[in-house]
C-alpha cells in the first residue's frame, strides 16, 4: 500500500535538519536572547523612532524608537516560553485526569470523561476567550486559559493509551510482586505513555504557538512595554500604511518558529512512531 512515508524520504530528512537547526537557534535565543540583544529592548528613544534598516539598527526601530532586532531577540523567551509552559501544563492535566480515568476506570472514568466531553463541545478558541474573561487578562491567565481549553483532548488520548496498556501481564506481575497501584502506574505505564505523548505534543507545539500568539495579538496577554511577538504585531498595526516592515519581522519569527517545530515534530513522529506515519495529522 502506498503511504506518505514512501514518497520523498530525502526531502523529509532535509526538512528535519532544517527544523532541528532552527529549533536549536530558538532555544539559544530563549536562554540568551536578552543578553545577546544589542540594545535594551524596552529603552525608548523618541528621536530615533521609525527608522529604517541601518548599520546601528539592523532591523530599524519601532514607533517609540526601540530597536526591533533587540525586541525580537528578547521576545523569544516570552513567546516561546509561554508555549512550552502551556504545553507542560496541558500535559500534566492530561496525564493526571486521563491517567486516573483510564487506570481506575469505573464510575470515576465515566464522570471525568463526561466533563472532558463537555469541554470539547465548546470550540477551543471560544473556550479560551471565555476563560480569559473569567480569569482576567494577562499572560499567566492566557496560559491557564489555553491549558483549561485543551486539557480534555490530551486527557482523552492519555486515557486510551493507558487502557491499551492496562491488561498487560507485566502489570499483573508487578501487582503480584506487591507494588501498589500508584507504584505500578508510575513505573510501568507512565514511561510508555510519556513517550507517545511527547510525539503528539511535539506535533502540537506549532499549533499551540499560533493559538497563544493569536490571543496576545488581540491584546489579551502580555501588556505592551514587554517585548513579545504577538504584541509587537499588535503595536505595529497602526503603522501598516507607513512602515509595513514593523509588521514583517515579528510575524516572520512566529512563522519560522511554528515551521521549525512542525518540521521537527514530523521528523520525530516518523522516527519514533512509524505507526502514525500512514495517517496525516
Amino acid at each position, binding site marked *: 500500500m502506498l503511504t506518505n512515508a514512501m514518497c520523498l524520504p530525502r526531502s523529509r530528512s532535509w526538512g528535519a535538519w532544517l527544523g532541528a537547526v532552527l529549533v536549536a537557534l530558538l532555544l539559544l535565543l530563549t536562554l540568551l536572547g536578552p543578553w545577546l540583544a544589542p540594545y535594551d529592548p524596552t529603552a525608548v528613544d523618541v528621536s530615533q523612532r521609525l527608522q529604517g534598516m541601518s548599520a546601528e539598527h539592523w532591523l530599524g526601530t519601532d514607533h517609540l524608537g526601540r530597536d526591533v532586532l533587540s525586541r525580537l531577540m528578547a521576545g523569544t523567551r516570552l513567546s516561546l516560553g509561554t508555549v512550552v509552559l502551556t504545553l507542560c501544563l496541558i500535559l500534566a492535566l492530561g496525564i493526571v485526569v486521563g491517567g486516573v480515568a483510564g487506570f481506575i476506570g469505573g464510575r470515576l472514568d465515566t464522570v471525568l470523561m463526561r466533563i472532558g466531553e463537555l469541554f470539547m*463541545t465548546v470550540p477551543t478558541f471560544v473556550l479560551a476567550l*471565555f476563560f480569559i474573561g*473569567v480569569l482576567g487578562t494577562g499572560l499567566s491567565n492566557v496560559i491557564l486559559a489555553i491549558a483549561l481549553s485543551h486539557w480534555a483532548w490530551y486527557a482523552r488520548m492519555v486515557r486510551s493509551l493507558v487502557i491499551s496498556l492496562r491488561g498487560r501481564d507485566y502489570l499483573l506481575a508487578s501487582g503480584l510482586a506487591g507494588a501498589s497501584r500508584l507504584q505500578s502506574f508510575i513505573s510501568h505505564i507512565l514511561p510508555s505513555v510519556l513517550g507517545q505523548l511527547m510525539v503528539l505534543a511535539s506535533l502540537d507545539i506549532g499549533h499551540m504557538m499560533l493559538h497563544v500568539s493569536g490571543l496576545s495579538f488581540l491584546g489579551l496577554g502580555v501588556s505592551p512595554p514587554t517585548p513579545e511577538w504577538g504584541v509587537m*504585531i499588535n503595536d505595529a498595526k497602526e503603522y501598516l500604511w507607513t512602515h*509595513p516592515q514593523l509588521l514583517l519581522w515579528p*510575524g516572520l519569527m512566529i512563522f519560522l518558529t511554528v515551521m521549525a517545530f512542525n518540521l521537527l515534530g514530523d521528523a520525530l513522529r516518523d522516527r519514533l512512531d512509524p505507526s502514525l506515519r500512514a495517517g*496525516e495529522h
Partner: protein
Amino acid sequence: MLRYIAYRLALLIPILLAVSLLVFVLLHMGRGDPALDYLRLSQIPPTDAALAEARHTLGLDRPLAEQYLVWLWRALHLDFGTSFVTGRPVLDDLLYYLPATLQLGGAALAVTLLVSLPLGIWAARRPGRWPDQLVRFIAFFGVSMPNFWLAFLMIALFSVLLGWLPPMGRGGLEHLVMPVLAVALMSLSINARLLRASLLEASGQRYVLYARLRGLPEGQVWRRHILRNAWLPVVTAIGMHVGELIGGTLVIETIFAWPGLGRFAVSAVYNRDFPVLQCFTLLMTGLFVFCNLIVDVLYAWLDPRTRLEGAQVC
C-alpha cells in the same frame, strides 16, 4: 434516516443544557465579583450600598442553584440578561453581529472545501511528482502561517502597494477575498493533505485493483471507487475545521474591521462583561454543535454502515 436526524436534534438539548451549566459554574467560580464589574462598567461608584443593591438586582445574593434556575428560565424565554457595557439585551447585540460572522465563516468553509478538494485530488493522482510536491509545500506553508500575520501581509500587498482590494469593512465580494483567505488557509491546507492521504490509502485497496482489472476506465475508477471511499475521513474532519474556522474568524474580523462578533466578544472579554460572555459562549457552542450534527448526518447519508449503528442507539 429521519429518525436518526430527529435523535441527533433531540440530543442537542441535553448538550446545550450541560454546557450552560458548565459555563455558569465556571463564571461563578472565577475570581472577582460580577457586581463590582457591573458597577465599574456602569460607572457607578462602588459604595457598600451600591454593591449590595447591584448584588440584589443581579440576583447574586440568592443561592447558586436558584440563580442558575432563574437564569435558565429566562434563557428559555430568550432573555439572556443585559450587557453591563451597552445596557442592551445581550441576545439583541449578539444577533446584530452574528450575520456578518456567519457570512465570513461560511465563505471560509466553502473556500476550504472548494480549494482543498481539487488540490488533494491533484496531489494524489501523481504521488511524489511535482504537483504533489507543490501541494505539500503549500500545505506546509499554510499550517505554519499565523492567520493574523497573513492578513496583514495581504493588506500590505493588495491594499497598500497595489491598491486592488479594500483593506477593511464589509461590502461586495472584493471585501471578502482577503479575510476569507486568511481564515481558510489553515483548514484548507490540512484538508488537502488529509484528502491526499485518504485517496492514496483508498487507491491501494483490492477493490480498486479489481476495478482496474475489469477494464473500467481510469476516470470511473477514481470517481466511483476511490473518491467515494476517500470522502469519509474528510467529511469527519469538516466538523473539526468548523471549530478552527470559528476561532480564526473572530481574530481576522478584528483586523479587517469586519462588523461581526469578533471585536464585540474581545471587548466583552476585556471588560469582563459576564452576561455577554455567557451568551456568546453558548451561541458559538450551539453553532459548533449544530455544524457537527450536519456533518454527522451527511456522514450517515454517505456511509450506510453508521446509519445502522445510529438506529440501534435509538
